[in-house]
Structure formats: C-alpha cells, structure tokens
C-alpha cells in the first residue's frame, strides 16, 4: 500500500488521499462496503472497473474515518444522488469525491463546501479535441503555446475541469464554460462567449504529482 495523504488547511484531518489500485485490490477489505455497494461492484462487468470501484469506496471510507474519528468505516452510508454526486448519509457537512484512473484511485473530503478530485496518468494520450471542451480564452492560450507544451497544458486543463465538475453543486456546467486561470490556481464559470457569469463560481485548485506518474487536481 502506498498512500499519499495531504492534510487539510484547517487542521481538521486529511483532505485527500490516493492509492495504487493494485495495492488496494491486494489488501482490500471489502467488508467495509455496504450491501448495496457490494451488489453494485458485482454488477460491474469489467474487472478493472470493478477493482477501481471497490478501491475507491474503500479508500473514501478510510479517509472519512480518519477525518472524523467518530465515524466507523463500516457504519458509513454512501449514496449517489441524481446529480451523480456522492453523499454521506447523516453527515451533510462532509463533502466527498472519488476519482479512478488506470492504476490509481483518489478520494477527497472537505467540510467547508463542495469538493471535487480528479486523477489522470501524466502520460495519458488521446485527449479530446480542444474545441469541444476548452473556453474561447483557453483556446486562444493553447494556440500561443509551443507544440511541445500543449499536451501537458491540455492534460492539466482536463484534470482541473473534471475536478471542478465534481465540485460544482449542479454538475450541469459544460466543460467549455469552466475557465482555468493561467496559473492553474483557480477556476471560474463563464458563459459560452467566455465572459464570467454574474453568479460565477470561483473554485480553488490544488495540484499534486504522484510518483512522477499521475496528476491529481482537487477543487473546492
């Protein structure tokens, strides 16, 4: 097991964790999952997707129990809302997010508002064409980059937007209406013309690179 743990900024326990799926699978304690989670896992057809689901839920329970010593892993009830967000039953003050990618799962919890986390391999290829998911401003920034800078720049935008999508309450904001600041520290919602919305949501972004292989973004 090779956990990476980052403490929250308010001295209130860990904010997020990541773990290798292979390690989590080898040491997984499926008993901490609820009956409905085990049924969901059994219904997942692809073995790798099933392993990541189990690893993600297990890691999230461990993180929640560590953040809130009064919570026992086995007693935590997680439900998926219609929006797709995970909710901790009976603990609306705790916001949670899980991300899975090839070889790694990441989990986050935050008690000061919505949170979203995303992880991707640094070498991930096959990013979708920017026109479909970048804001107009980001498309202009991309056009000014040298060819060898574009892939990592695109990957960072993708990971940030996925984290933001999980954090925004409605989760109905199109990716091309989420603008990541050029320094990567914040993201705001904009309209289709790239103008910040009157009721725009500004989120703070945190970044971490795991073992030179995975890029993690956390939005809150």
């Amino acid at each position: 097991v090779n956990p990476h743990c980052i403490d929250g900024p308010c001295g209130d326990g860990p904010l997020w964790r990541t773990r290798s799926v292979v390690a989590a699978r080898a040491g997984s304690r499926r008993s901490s999952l609820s009956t409905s989670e085990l049924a969901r896992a059994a219904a997942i057809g692809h073995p790798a997707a099933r392993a990541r689901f189990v690893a993600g839920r297990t890691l999230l329970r461990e993180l929640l129990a560590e953040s809130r010593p009064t919570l026992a892993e086995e007693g935590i009830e997680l439900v998926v809302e219609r929006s797709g967000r995970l909710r901790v039953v009976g603990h609306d003050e705790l916001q949670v997010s899980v991300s899975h990618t090839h070889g790694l799962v990441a989990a986050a919890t935050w008690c000061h508002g919505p949170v979203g986390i995303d992880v991707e391999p640094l070498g991930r290829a096959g990013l979708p064409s920017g026109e479909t998911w970048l804001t107009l401003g980001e498309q202009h920034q991309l056009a000014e980059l040298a060819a060898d800078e574009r892939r990592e720049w695109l990957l960072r935008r993708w990971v940030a937007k996925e984290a933001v999508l999980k954090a925004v309450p409605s989760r109905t904001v199109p990716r091309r209406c989420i603008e990541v600041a050029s320094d990567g520290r914040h993201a705001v919602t904009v309209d289709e013309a790239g103008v910040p919305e009157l009721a725009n949501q500004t989120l703070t972004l945190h970044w971490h690179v795991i073992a030179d292989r995975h890029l993690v973004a956390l939005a809150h």
Partner: protein
Amino acid sequence: VTTDDLRTLLLDVLSDVAPETDPAAVDPTEDLRDELDLDSMDELNMITKVSERLGIDVPEDDYPKLRTLDGAVAYLADRVGAPAG
C-alpha cells in the same frame, strides 16, 4: 441511416476508443463505462467521433443519454430521424 446502422457505427467507434472491445460481447443495456472500463475522457472521445461521423452536435447535458448502447442508439435515432431496422 437506420438504427442498425447507428448500432454498427457506435460499436465501430467504441472499438476505436477502447481497442480491446469485443463488439459481440457488449451488453446493450449496461453502462458502457462499467462494461468497457471507459472514463470521462473516453466518453467525450466517443461522443465527439460519433458527432463528427453523423454531422450533429451533442450537447453535454445529453451525454448521460449515451451511456448504454441501446440508449445511445435511441438518442441518435431521434436526432437524425433514423427508422428502425
């Protein structure tokens, strides 16, 4: 374009996005993300390729409608006016 054509097109695109896919083994009612181990980037790549080949725009709000093979065929048939068969 018929619904059969759309199903063939979708399986062709899925084979491109997830090369290990066995088209004959895809359960048309299962969530493609769970069945084929697709993530959000794969999903957007799939929808982008389908959109390009059909010449239509799929709004992001509609992406959840394409998460099963049957759902995707029904959605695309409605969008392009495809008859059954």
